[in-house]
């Protein structure tokens, strides 16, 4: 017998459907700064060039579901579109812990969380969004930022990566190799390296990096 709450016959006679009140009335609200359209850049790139549907996860764990959102990689902000009012807003970063966004023209869902990490160049700590690539004892995230090339309006991808170790240490890096990644885990360096060699796992791109971290989590 299923212990999930199922409507009893008496409730069916009630003509009620779990709630007489729409769930929207009861859900928490998102807050953000209203923008005019000119402030929103439309950078090229697969996850940036279209609005998409997604869920926003508030600090208290509540999820605001099925909103039209997009991630702005230049300013590292989540932008939500309120279609009915035709207003766009930058969701207040301090009020959310992350978001899930559906990849345009695909069924994949990208999970983003908000992390506090040290900037590679300035060494200042900042809150930023990072895409979850591997979740486990050791987690891997990708910071998908965009930057202008020189003084032009062209944009280039400026991806960097974050590893969060089991003890909570956060390591933010740009370039990587097999030697570098193995060196991040001194306590299991030799066994990690030998496993990587066994599987001929070079770490030269993101896919290989993901595979390596997943392998490490099995050690």
């Amino acid at each position, binding site marked *: 017998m299923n212990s999930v709450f199922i409507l009893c016959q008496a409730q069916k006679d*009630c*003509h009620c459907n779990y709630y007489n009140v729409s769930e929207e009335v009861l859900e928490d609200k998102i807050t953000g*700064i209203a923008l005019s359209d000119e402030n929103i850049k439309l950078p090229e790139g697969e996850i940036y060039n279209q609005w998409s549907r997604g869920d926003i996860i508030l600090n208290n764990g509540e999820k605001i579901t099925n909103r039209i959102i997009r991630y702005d990689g230049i300013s590292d902000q989540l932008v939500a579109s309120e279609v009915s009012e035709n207003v766009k807003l930058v969701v207040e970063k301090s009020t959310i812990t992350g978001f899930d966004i559906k990849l345009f023209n695909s069924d994949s869902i990208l999970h983003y969380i908000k992390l506090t990490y040290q900037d590679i160049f300035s060494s200042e700590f900042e809150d930023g969004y990072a895409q979850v690539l591997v979740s486990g004892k050791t987690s891997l995230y990708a910071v998908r930022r965009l930057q202008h090339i020189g003084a032009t309006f062209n944009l280039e991808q400026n991806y960097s990566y974050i590893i969060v170790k089991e003890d909570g240490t956060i390591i933010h890096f740009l370039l990587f190799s097999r030697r570098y990644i193995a060196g991040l885990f001194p306590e299991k360096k030799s066994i990690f390296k030998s496993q990587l060699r066994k599987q001929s796992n070079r770490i030269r791109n993101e896919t290989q990096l993901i595979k390596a971290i997943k392998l490490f989590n099995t050690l």
Partner: protein
Amino acid sequence: MKKQNLNYLRDCCMETIKNVVFMLLIFLLGSTIISAKDKNSNNDPVDCFYTGIQKVYLQLNKEVYITGEDVLFNCYLVNAANIPDTFCKVVYVELASSNNQKILGFSVSLFKGIGNSYFSLPDTLTTGYYYIKAFTNNMRNFEHDYYFYAKILIANQADDRLEKLITDNYHNIDSARVLFYPQSGNLINGIENKILLQLSDFSEDWEKQSVNIINDSGKIVKTVIPDNTGIGTFNLIPEKNSKYFALWNRKKFELPQQVSSGFIIQTETDGNVTILSNSLEMSDILNFRAYNNGSIIFEKKFTLSNGSATFSIPVENRKKGFTIFVLFNSYNRLLCKNAMYVHDDSAQVKITSNKTSYKTREKVILTIDLQDKGILKNGLNLSLNISQKGVYKTKCYTSTIKNYFCLKSNFDKKNSGLLESDSISEQQINKILPVFNFPKTISPVCQFLPENKGYILSGNIFSKDGKTVPDIPVYLSVADSFASFKYCFTDSTGRFFFRLSRFYENKNLIFQARGNNNDAVKIEIEDKYNGEPSKHVGFDYIPEDLRNFIKSTQNVVLANKIFKPGLLNLISDHMFDENLYNHHFYGATDVTIYLSDYDELDDFKDIVRNILPGVYYNRSENKVRVIDRGTQTLWHNEALVLLNNIPFPDPAFIDKLGTKQIKKIDLKKNHIIYGNIDLYGILSITTNQKNVYALNPALANITIPNIVRNVQVLLQGPDYSSNTSPKARPDLRQTLYWNPGLKLSDDGKASVEFYTSDLKGNYKVELEGISSKGVIIYSSTAIEVK
């Protein structure tokens, strides 16, 4: 000729190929149809069953209390199959007087259907019987038969009611009812129906009274003598167009309406199943299935002969716990259903103590051994209570988990005392009480929402002339270090709803509303605790032996209050992460100004003019506007002003605030969208003095406390292993040990150690629990302190 033969052969081949293809298509189509039908016939009808029933049980540490004492409780919320209800997250507990006046009420958060905490009895209660009620918001939609009621005796040392002997001549007859549960749901005329009746709101004086079943001409057709739990069964063949009534206690109660045709499933503990019907479909091939724990344990196809069929479920197929029986026809249409509960006696726990008799302040070691280790795999919640038991014939009606969940009746008067170690008689344990029917609704509209994500608070807005006001915003805020701000627009009936997260626990909730065109409105918050009929009679008879016990207990409680011998260990709620609620609803601020950094200024206008950049304050209109950071122009609309994180403060009060009163001001200058309301800047004033908020009198407002008991309690008592404990301090604890979250090791064992108190007497050791599969655990033993 050859050419003609070739053409003929070609045509024949084509024809053959066509036929073969056609046959193939038919075959494929046919097999699709067949497999679809098989798929349908395998459809699990269990999903169509309703498990909307919820039952609540509270385990209390005692049943006789003195005013000012703490009541420790452990709460279980289960569905009809006794499986912990993981859907609803909130249970309401109410302490009410014997005439149903609410004394105090609070909510308890549940985790996987279990919750525990404590509450203190007010010192001002008069001596008498009181009820502790428990219910969920969803249960309020239905008749209150599944509300939990425990009757406790509370004595007040300061009043003299204990000395008076009050005879029990007060019976609340009006609330007494007879409830009927026809087997398989409906009364079907022309065939023998088995009907269960339950007496509600009765006293033990009435148990000997029989219930007469009469027809509409007044002729007695049956006489039923309910047992001491108020339950009885009788068989009836209703005649067409006849009405039937139950005569009890000089009142008439009508039996349910009959239907002209249908099916009945009758089940017995020995596995015999009888199907009866007068329906036209009775000549069809019928399909009978029995489900237990989601899987089919027995299935049979058969036809009725002269409207009946009897068969038996083999012994090896019969299971304990909750079994659902379904009958449907050859087209898979559900004809009727029934259910049966058989208590699982294998889930026994053995409690052994190292001795039976102890001295005062001696160590007690209890070993707990679960007989069936398989239960541990699915999760088990156990609660251990060791409290003094008095030698008295009490009239309190606290129950044990076993006789509460395993029997339909809430009360079992024979087992209300603490004298018997196993408080259920064998007859009652083995008594099969089929859940014949589910309670009817009392209103056509489902008013009260199941709280699966948090507390739902609702209310209404009324205009001056008492009419409901639709489509106006109601604001909710609390005075806290972080600004929280919820709003809800009233619906067409003037009703509003808020779902409260854990952040709102034990805080004063401030509601504000303004009518359209600034009309005056009134806010009414729905009180969840009111409205239930009195469950039991309100007699106040206290026998002499109970009075003597209370007198001795009063001295004990007084001594405990003075000397406080290491009482409750309060365990904070590990599930509540305060860090989730550490931000303002509007996010980060743009500007924060600390007024202590500036020269003294007398009023708010001076502060705005001299210190606050980009803020415009119109004193005559009492409006604050801010400059948009982006365009550097003043917003046309006024900003939201918060005083100590409460919105819409009294402008006259704000006007008088100077740098001496204000600690800091936070400013947010952007156009903010919160949900679907626009805020053109936010000005948040925090005063030096805490808890200062002056609400705008132009808005309707109401403040209510949100009392939630979530602090868990563990009572182990002091450690007397070393000799440093001062013997001059008496330890007269009546509850020696209370642990609502007892954990067993992987081998199903646990060892519990504690020290006895200075209070000599007999102590009852009671272990109650429930597994995630709905297996009820109960075990008890006794120890003596000499």
